[in-house]
């Protein structure tokens, strides 16, 4: 063990040199990976605040299904001759659309949908009970249907299947400058929204009843979040795949929450933690030739129980 430890520590200068060399050649890969981690950790705070961690997995899987539908349509429409940009646009659109449908279902109060249906004069009856039902069953159904559907739909398309395999494998190799710009733009919008409305959003997501009672526009805030998180998740999934997306969505938040008592501080801590883990995962993965996204999620996964231990020893009391 000592030999191995000495090996890792003596490798540090080499790891750094190797990282800087590769970084110069493929900056887009590193930038997109780090930005995806930062963006998703911000979104993840509110998902964890609503205790809907597993819904995050269902959303990423549904988004994969959306990409699968896009690839299926490309095959049907004979778009194989279309430009890469047009195909990319269609794939991104379906990925975001599928994610948005999920986030609207998961985070917007159902009374909004009832009121909307009633305004459209559809014969629906308001159901108070349906709001209180657990969403676990639908979450599981979404997860399974999307997982199976994305493979079944493209089983006759070798190219399409390869894309889906790549997404499930969660590789970030091939990220472009456009991807970096897209995630950077969404992140900037996210940071601006957090700076402006952090307290209101936190209250709506931690205590909706009270937020409504003091006249915060809870449903409006939920709609904006559903839209924003749908766009963020859809875009990040297309760039980095399901494992990395889901991992960065929840693990940095769960880890950071074990070190602090304040939800407001979490909005700063979680993105910092996400960046540090992504930096470590990408640098080590690059040097030891291990898939970087998997290594990042693995490092976070290993660190989570350590953070739990720290919490029970030093924070709780």
């Amino acid at each position, binding site marked *: 063990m000592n030999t191995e430890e000495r090996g890792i520590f003596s490798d540090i200068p080499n790891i750094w040199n190797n990282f800087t060399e590769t970084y110069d050649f493929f900056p887009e890969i590193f930038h997109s990976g780090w930005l995806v981690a930062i963006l998703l950790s911000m979104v993840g*705070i509110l998902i*964890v*605040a*609503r*205790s809907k961690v597993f819904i995050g997995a269902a959303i990423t899987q549904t988004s994969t299904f959306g990409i699968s539908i896009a690839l299926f349509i490309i095959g049907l429409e004979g778009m194989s001759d279309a430009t890469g940009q047009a195909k990319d646009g269609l794939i991104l659109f379906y990925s975001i659309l599928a994610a948005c449908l999920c986030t609207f279902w998961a985070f917007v109060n159902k009374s909004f949908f009832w009121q909307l249906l*009633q305004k459209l004069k559809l014969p629906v*009856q*308001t159901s*108070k009970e349906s709001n209180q039902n657990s969403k676990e069953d639908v979450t599981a159904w979404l997860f399974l249907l999307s997982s199976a559907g994305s493979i079944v739909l493209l089983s006759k398309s070798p190219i399409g299947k390869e894309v889906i395999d790549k997404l499930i494998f969660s590789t970030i190799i091939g990220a472009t400058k456009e991807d970096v710009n897209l995630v950077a733009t969404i992140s900037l919008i996210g940071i601006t929204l957090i700076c402006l409305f952090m*307290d*209101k959003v*936190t*209250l709506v*997501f*931690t*205590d*909706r*009843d*009270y937020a*409504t*009672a*003091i*006249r915060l526009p809870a449903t409006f805030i939920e709609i904006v979040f559903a839209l924003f998180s749908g766009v963020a998740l859809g875009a990040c999934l297309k760039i980095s795949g399901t494992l990395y997306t889901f991992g960065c969505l929840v693990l940095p938040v769960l880890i950071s*929450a074990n070190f*602090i*008592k*304040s*939800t*407001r501080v*979490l909005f700063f801590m979680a993105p910092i933690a996400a960046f540090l883990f992504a930096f470590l995962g990408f640098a080590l993965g690059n040097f030891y030739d291990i898939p970087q996204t998997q290594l990042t999620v693995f490092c976070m996964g290993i660190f989570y129980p350590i953070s739990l231990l720290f919490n029970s020893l030093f*924070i*709780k*009391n």
Partner: protein
Amino acid sequence: MNNHQISISDLSLGYSSKKVISQANLNISEGDFWGLVGPNGQGKSTFIKTLMGLVRPLSGKIKYVGLSRKDIGYVPQRSSVTSTLDMTTTEFIALSAPGLPFSKTRKSTITSVLKSVWLNNKGGRSIKTLSGGERQRLSIARALVRNPKLLILDEPDTGLDFTSIGHLTELLTELNANKKITILLISHNLHTVQRLTSKTVLFAHGQAHSGATSEVLTNEKITAAFTNSQISQDSVLKWLQKEA
């Protein structure tokens, strides 16, 4: 002379497809301490939501004199703090008052409301480390930071032990007597309502019967109201046994 008052006349409440209460009449004056009792599903929550302006009445009028809906403080049920994320007591209070997190008087305001609910030694503590009773008093502190003239509490004693209920009733009495805050208390604990309130509304069978607590909480009326009601039967039976 009363400084503020809420007059409710011929009020019918419910949702588009279902009427919950018909023709309710009530006058809530400054310094009143009202109890709202009745089986679940009989309109207590709809009534307070309507008072807060969150639900529109089907018919009838609510007239606010000397206060607006912003002067109403609300303490939801314990279960409303559902987040898995932790929060400090200070943050919990600060979040509810717009502008407070960045104001110069933030610290002193929060210290003052924590003191008013006897939690002055809990500033900056994690809310997860507080007992059920302390969390409930913290919820009251959160409502008090907005300087309410009327405080509505939705089943604050649910799940609390005997000592915590004692602290809570003592606190509510003090807020009502010394700070002149008008209080509406929803509770299934008829003993608490009987001990604390001077007036009571009994919600049952689509009607809201209001009057002096001693006149409303009679064996006859309570038995009639809770017949066929599964929920809160235990607490009601205990109360009836004691009264008998």
